[in-house]
Each structure stands twice: as C-alpha cells, then as structure tokens.
C-alpha cells in the first residue's frame, strides 16, 4: 500500500463514517477528524518529500507505485508526487479543512451535504496524486459530479440553472479531455497510460497538433479560459460557501495543473507551436475578467470574475514556457486558491448575516462585524497583490518569468497582463470602500453579530496561509521550481 493512497483512503473512510453517523455531532466529528487528518498527512507528505529530496533523490516523481487494473488498455492505478503535487495537496487539505468549518452551521440535509463534499475531496486528492492519464481522468470526473448536486440542492439564487450550466460546460470539457487522453494514449503507441512513460515516447507531430488544443481546451475550461469561463460566475454565485471555496480554490486549479502536466508536458512540440493562440485567449481572460469585475454588483460575481482574471494568469504563465513563469503559475495556483477560498468564506459569512450580496445594499460592515471586515480587507489586499501576501510573489514570479521571452508578441501580452494588477486594485478598493467602510445605512444590520469561533478558525487559518506564503516564499518557490524544470526541459528540447 502506497503512502499516497491514504489521500484517497481518508475521504473514503469519511464517506463510510458519515454513512454511519446518526446525528449532527457525529457528522461534525467525522468531518473534523477526516479533514484534520488530511491536513496532517499533507504536511507529513511535504516533510517526507523534502527529506527525500535533500537525501538526494532526484527522480522526477517520488513515492511512485503502479497497480494494473485494466489490462487491455494498460490502465494502471499509478500514483506519484513531485513538488507541484505536494503543494497542491497542501492547498487542498487546507481548503477542505477550512471548508468544513465554513459550513459548520449547514442545516439542510447535513449528512448528504458532507457526503458529497467528501466525495468531491476524494476526487480532488486523487487527481493530484495520480500519474496515470486514465486514473487522473477518473478522479477528475469524481470531483465534477458532486458539484451538480451540491449546487443544485444546497445553493442559492438560480441554483438549478447554475448547477446545470456548470456541470454541462465542465462535462463538455471533459469530453474533449477524454478525446485528448485517448489521442495521447494511442499517439504514443497505445502501450501505456503513465505520464512519465509517455513523456519518454514521442507522439507524432501531426497528432500533437490535433490533440494539444483539444487537451488544453479540456483542462482550460476548468481553468476558466476565455471564452469558456461563463460557468464560473453563475456557478460560484449559486454554490454554497464551502463548495465555492473548494471549487474556486482547488477544482479550478485542476485545470491549470492538467494543462501543465498533461497537455504541455506530453505534447511539447505542438505546445511550442500553438501556444500563441491560447496565449491570446488567456491574456484576454486576465484583463477581461478584471474589467468585468469592476461593474458587478454581486459580491460573488466580483470574486468569480476576479478568479477568471487570476486563473487566466495561471494559464498565461504556463504558456509563457519559461521556468520562472511556470513556477510562478504554480505559485499563483496556490495563492489564488487560498485567497479566493478566503474571499468566498467571508462572503458566505457576510451573506449568512445580511442575506444579501448586493454591494449597493451593504455598507459600513466594519462597524458591525469588524472581524469579518478586516478579513475581507486583508483578502482584498492579498488579491490585489500586496507584498506580504501570496499574490505578490506569485504575480511577480509570473511577470519576471514572462519577461524572459524576448519577442514582441510575448512582451506585449505580458505588459497587457500586468495592467490587470491596476484594474484589480480599482475593483477591490471600490468594493472595500463601498461595503466595508462608511456608515451603516440599514438599521437592521446593527443587530448583526461578528464571526463565531468556527468562522474565525477558518478565516484565521486561511489568512495565516496567505500571509505565510507571502512572507516566506523561498521554500515553496524552490520545491515548485525544481519540479517545473523537467516539463520546461521537455518543452525546450523541442
């Protein structure tokens, strides 16, 4: 039994535990135990990983193991982690943990909610540990399906519509993905589904030209690639808090991770050749999301468009195809995951009290709920890339990396992308100025209370993570950096 499988095992055990749980206390106990255990395991994995690396283990993936489970297509349950997966697992663990606390007061069908939530976590963790294309795809689907129910049942607003839209668009994307995966599998000779082994083989360039866009698109939709991002605003706006957190925080990262790990890594020639198309799209995403966020009136929409912008930056950086930029991309995934989860958690908490997310109605929250407001301001600063928070290091790494491309095309798009940091400042400050500051206008709000302990815990953990990453980036940056190198080498060698 491989150590990594524990990340799939724990959510499965949580499912069992929830199934057996009889009342809300037991449900919470199961969730907290499971989520904490996941966090501990993620930290331990990071520790083991670093120890193995410093002991001189230079193989690309550590803790690998492979178990065949469908011979005719050579499908294996193959797992393994490198630095990118390790930090992604850490991110997922943190967000699952805080998500549990953010949905502490879930009333409606609590058990079912957490059942689906655990299943979703299982998919996410499974995705990050797998190195077999098919297993990866399977976990991806596992993560996708619970979304529909979670939004459709526990959501707010136009939840059926949003759930349907989100699921359909992502399922459409996964159809592309399946095509891409099969293309890669057969293009590489049909002998293996293992990413590491495929990387050593060569896929004919004609096939790469067909399957690279398909695969990239398949993952890119999940990474909110323009113009396939429209599921994001509606989906996030309707989803319950913890689901928004997990979805924007982790699930959207599956897109960037997959683009990098599968599309770019396995089809380097086509990637070099065709990156410009997607570069234009992602560049548009970055600026477009930021501009759209400026005039939204729903807090969650603002954040969703902001996510479009920031996740666009992830793909943008990946496509820049330099070592620094791709390191920055992973940092940005990490950073955006934490920040956006923090945002959604806070928005959920504010909404739970005021029952509105309309920025035109909220005002003077600082006076009523100082803790949440300060959290919101911090999240805002982190989002606009203030030094000391994770956004800054990620964005700077991306921009420095992007600048390593000397041709005019890349330069121009880099400069266009940098303007997003100003636009981000515009909408964040507008928002903070409008809802946090000012006098309380609605007298009914005066009786509202500040965060309770469970909410405080989840906010504090996230803020600490954001600030920790922002103040001490060296460790993360270096373990990510050494893991992005093989992919970049692969890209450069062609």
């Amino acid at each position, binding site marked *: 039994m491989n150590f990594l499988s524990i990340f799939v095992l724990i959510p499965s055990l949580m499912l069992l535990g929830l199934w057996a749980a009889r009342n809300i206390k037991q449900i919470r106990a199961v969730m907290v135990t499971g989520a904490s255990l996941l966090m501990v395991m993620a930290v331990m994995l990071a520790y083991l990983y670093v120890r193995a690396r410093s002991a001189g283990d230079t193989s690309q993936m550590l803790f690998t193991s492979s178990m065949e489970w469908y011979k005719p297509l050579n499908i294996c349950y193959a797992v393994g982690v490198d630095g990118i997966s390790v930090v992604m697992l850490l991110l997922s663990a943190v967000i699952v943990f805080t998500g549990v606390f953010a949905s502490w007061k879930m009333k409606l069908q609590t058990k079912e909610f957490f059942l689906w939530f655990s299943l979703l976590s299982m998919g996410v963790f499974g995705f990050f540990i797998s190195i077999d294309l098919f297993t990866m795809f399977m976990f991806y689907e596992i993560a996708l399906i619970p979304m529909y129910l979670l939004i459709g049942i526990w959501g707010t607003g136009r939840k059926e519509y949003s759930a349907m839209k989100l699921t359909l668009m992502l399922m459409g994307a996964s159809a592309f993905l399946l095509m891409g995966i099969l293309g890669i599998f057969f293009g590489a000779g049909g002998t293996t589904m293992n990413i590491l082994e495929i990387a050593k083989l060569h896929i004919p360039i004609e096939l790469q030209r067909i399957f690279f866009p398909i695969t990239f698109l398949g993952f890119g939709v999940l990474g909110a690639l323009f113009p396939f991002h429209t*599921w994001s605003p509606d989906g996030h706006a309707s989803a319950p808090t913890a689901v928004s957190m997990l979805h924007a925080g982790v699930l959207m990262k599956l897109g960037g991770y997959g683009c990098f790990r599968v599309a770019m890594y396995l089809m380097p020639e086509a990637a070099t050749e065709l990156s410009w198309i997607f570069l234009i799209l992602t560049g548009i995403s970055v600026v477009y999301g930021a501009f759209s966020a*400026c005039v939204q009136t729903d807090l969650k929409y603002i954040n969703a468009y902001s996510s479009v912008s920031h996740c666009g930056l992830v793909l943008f950086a990946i496509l820049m195809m330099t070592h620094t930029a791709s390191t920055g991309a992973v940092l940005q995934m990490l950073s955006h995951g934490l920040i956006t989860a923090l945002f959604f958690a806070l928005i959920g908490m504010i909404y739970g009290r005021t029952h509105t997310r309309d920025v035109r109605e909220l005002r003077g929250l600082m006076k009523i709920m100082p803790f949440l407001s300060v959290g919101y301001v911090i999240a805002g600063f982190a989002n606009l890339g*203030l030094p000391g928070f994770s956004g800054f290091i990620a964005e*700077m790494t991306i921009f420095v990396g992007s600048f390593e491309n000397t041709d005019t095309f890349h330069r121009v798009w880099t400069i266009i992308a940098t303007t997003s940091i100003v636009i981000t400042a*515009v909408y964040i400050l507008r928002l903070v100025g409008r809802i946090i500051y*000012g006098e309380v206008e609605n007298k009914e709000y005066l009786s509202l209370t500040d965060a309770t302990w469970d909410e405080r815990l989840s906010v504090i953990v996230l803020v600490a993570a954001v600030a920790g990453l922002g103040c001490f*980036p*060296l460790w993360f940056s270096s373990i990510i950096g050494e893991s992005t190198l093989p992919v970049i080498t692969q890209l450069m060698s062609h």
Partner: protein
Amino acid sequence: MEQYSITLLVLLLPLAAFLFLGLFGNRFKPLTAGLIATIEMAATTVIAYFTAFKYFTSDRLADGTFATCIPFDHVWLPFGKTLTFNMGILLDPISVMMLIVITTVSLMVHVYSLGYMKGEKGFQRYFAFLSLFTMSMLGLVVATNIFQMYLFWELVGVSSYLLIGFYYTKPSAIAASKKAFIVTRFADLGFLIGILIYGYYVGSYSFEYSVHIKAIAAAGTVIPLALGLMIIGGAGKSAMFPFHLWLPDAMEGPTPVSALIHAATMVVAGVYLIARLFPLFIGYAPDVLHIAGYVGAFTALFAAVIACVQTDIKRVLAFSTISQIGFMIVALGVSTSTDPHHGGLGYMASMFHLFTHAMFKALLFLGAGAVIHAVHSNEMKDMGGLRKYMRVTHFTFLIACLAIAGIPPFSGFFSKDEILVATFMFSPVMGYLMTFIAGLTAFYMFRLYYNIFWAKPCELKAGHDGHVHTPHEAPAVMTVPLVILAALTCVVGYIVPFGKFISSDGSAYHIHIDLKVAVTSIVVAVIGIGIARVMYRGASRKIADGLERNFGLLYRAAVKRFYIDEIYQFITHKIIFALISKPVAWFDRHVVDAFFDGLAWIAHVAAAKIKGLQSGNVQSYAVVFLWGIIAIMAALLFITFGVFWLL
C-alpha cells in the same frame, strides 16, 4: 559588517509593534497602545541614530567615499536560476540619512499623535498603521535591490491608503484613500515594467552597479527605457504632474499622518529612487534625467500657483509639498555628471533639501494640526488672529514659514540655495524660473501664515457643548514635538558638512554659498513675503478680492486646480467604467454567456422535438414506418428505372 547587525532591528521593531498592536491592540487601553508604539519608535530612532553615527564616523575608503555596507542580503524569492529577489539592508550615505529623517519625523509624529488623536476611535489601529508605515518606509530606504524597494514601495502605498482612510466612515476620506492608492498604483505599473526590463537585461536587481557594470553596458539602449519607466513610478509616489492629484485629497487623513507620510517621508520616495539610480542615470540616461527635471520644474510652478489660491490650509501645504518635491527633482534633473564640482551639485542639493524639507514641512503640518485641533476646521475663513491664543504654535509655524521661504539663517535657505546654484549651472532660464517659484513659495506660505495668525480675529463659534470657547494652545505632548522640530529647522541648515557626507560621487564636498544667487533669492523671497503681508495681514482683504475679481478666469481655474481632477474623474468614470468595464460585462453576459446558453437552448429544443417523435402513439409510428417503406421503395425504383421511371 557585523557591527551593523543591530540595524535589522530598525525594521523588526516597527514590524513587531504593528503585528502586536494589529492583533492584540484592542485588548489594551488606547493610551497604553499608543505608548507601546511610541516607545518602540523611540528605540528604533535610537538605533537609527546609532547606526548613522557609526557609519559616518567610520573610516573612509581610499577614494574618499564611505563604504557601502550590506550587513544582510538574503535570497527571498528566486526567479529561475540566477535572478533572485533578495531582501537585505544596504547602508550608504543616503540611506543612512533617510533613516535619520524617517525615524526623527516618525518619532515626533508618534509623540504628537498621542495628543492629537486622543479620544479618537481606533487609536490602537492608528498606531499599528503608523508602525506599519514606518517599517515599510525604512525597508524602502535600506533596500539592497530595486525589487525590494518595489515591495516596500507597495507597502508604504498601502499604509498610506489605510491612514488616509483612517476615518473610514467619512465618504471623502474613503474616496481620497482609494484615489491615492489607485493613482500611485497606476504609476507603479510603470515602475514594475521598468524593473522587469532592467532585471531581464542586467540579470540582477541589485543596487551594486559596479558588480554588474558589464551587463549594464551590454544592455545599452533599454536602460534609458527601464529608467524612464521607473521614474514614472517615482513620479506617482512623489506626486509629480500628472500624478499629483492624489496628494491634496490625501489630506483627508489625520494631520499627523499628513505630516509623516505626505510631507516628510513617503512622498520623497520618488526623489530617493532617482537618487538611488543616480549613477545609472548619469551614465546611461542623462536625457531621461533632464526630462524628469523639466517635469519637476513644471510641477513646482504649477503646484505653487495653485497653492496661492487654496483656502484649505492643509491643501495649501499639500501643494507646497508638491512644489518642494518638484524642487528636489529639478535639482537631480539638472545634474550632468557625478562630479559634485561640475554638474553633480544637484544631487547633493536635492538630498539636502529633502533633509531640511522633511523637518520644516513636518513642522508646518504639525503646526497646522495644532491649529485645526484648536478651531476644528481646515478652512482659512474660520481662522485669523490666532497668534494671541497659540503662542508656541505661532512661533514655530513662523520659523517653518521662514525656512521654506528661504530666509537665512533657517535651514531651507541653505538647501534651496544649493538647488538654485545647481540650476543656474545647468541653464540660466531654469535658474530664474526656479527663483521665481521660490518667490511664489514665500508668497503663499506667508499668505497662509497671515491668514491663520493675523488678519481679522476669528469668529468664535459655539462648540457642541453649547458654550462658546476660545481657541487654546495644544497640550504639551503636541507642542514639544513642534518645538523640537523648530529647533531642528533652525540648526540643520548649519550642518554645513552635509556635503561632506553626501555627494554625487560619495567624496566630501564643501558646501559654499554662491552670493549672487543667494542674494537674488533672498530678495525675491522678501518681496513675496512683503506682498503677502500687504494683502493678507490686515483684517480687510481689499487687494486680494480685487485681484480675484480681475483675474477671475485664472483664479477659478487655479482654485479648481486647473481641472485636472475633473479630467481624472472623467477618465476613471467615463472611460474605464462606462466605456470599458460596462461593455465588457455586457459582452460577457449577452454574447459569450448567451452563446453557451444558446447552445444549451438548441440542445433543449432539439431534444424536445425528438422527444415528440417518441410519443408512444402507435399510429404515428405506423405513419413513419409507412413513409420509410415508401422511401425505400422509391429509392429502389429510382435505382432500377432511373429518373424517368414515371414516364
């Protein structure tokens, strides 16, 4: 190097104070929190002075310069293999000088704030932010590389934002803080791109140019571009035209904050940036430097003109600050070489002026704060005749006014004189222009002075407690910093050996007064003061009103600050929001999203139609079945008999 290890505390102490007060501040009584911050600040000041003392008394190198010390320099964030983002401490004459300026003014402001902010809600928060600002500003000046500078540059921006928006329930304060942050951030975009270009071509962000001299030389033509972009960032922070518009609005913050951030320290960051990059400018991009100088000169003139007609005393001071920073930039901009004797004088003059200006401008602001504290208004019309009530404030304010007007023996005279000398060396036209602006400065400062302390006695207003109360002198905790700063203003001009420590090439330079220039400037200043005295000293404002009437258009334009704010409003609201964001959002909802909704709709409709076929009605099935057979038969007939089988 180890001897400067203690300097690290200069950064860590304020940071600790910020975190401590930020997290636990509300557990303490306001005054306790304030005292904690103030004591911490005093400790920081002591360390900074200690460092400065040690540094300036250390042995000079063989070429007569002070060694640049880098006690700390650690990789903070690696970019790829070679390029790294370091964090560290760099000590050289200007950074050490800045340490002194910042800690001195900051300490004064801390002490002053204990009195000024008494009873305000959020007292703890205020001190936490002050500590944050101090930390960031100190981090900025001791940065070892341009990226670290950028990092702290952003942090001072945000602490400025937080402090301007301190009264967060006041809409104007919120708007002002937002404006300040966004305008400077927009400018910082230029700075960032400049850094990116520089870093890529030079392969390092470090300020130790000598190490990378080859790479810099190889980079060639992109260096001026990079430097030009960086100057944009500097212009944003230092409120140079056209980024000046945030500074007057920033006066919405508490007055001590204006003194610290928006007069003495943060706004001179742009000047400091140019000074930091000075060798590069001289070596590779003198033209860019001169352009900056012209912009500085224009800004100085522009701001001085506006300052002459503003009625809000803090705004007058704000425009005066802009104008004075313009002076500093001009001084740097007219430099043509690193030799202080031939064209490099401006560097020293600029730093000198930065130093003296910090003192007297902080004094002016704190004095203004005391006045505002007494009359509860920012408007000149609510003041007048205050000299009787507030003797200490009056006296110290007068000293500061004389200093800024350039009257000997106060400090401003010396530094301004050096600037004028440097300017005349560069071009006489520029020199006369700057002298004229110096005169204007004297005029508007004394307009301010006479309006506050002389003129008609102010109307005594009923306070909120119902009874009329006379303006009274501020408490000792506020006047003491005033007196200290006034004393400094009197004496720092005599640090004649200033040039010994700081000069463009690092070697000692003996400051001497150019009599011709000095006399001219004094005469001009005195004329300015005289006009102001005639116009504003008395209770009647006949001349002033007459002038306002006769130059109506110009006057109104100046009062409206030449409509730059309106243009800004137009750009942000009309262009960014109405012309870009709204259409983009509309496009997103009605085109992109509608496209996918349309796809779903098509699928839905098609499904409904196909579902209709599957009705469960056998008769319908039979019809389709029959037609199927007919079609097959027709096809077979067609194959057998061809098209004309009917015939």
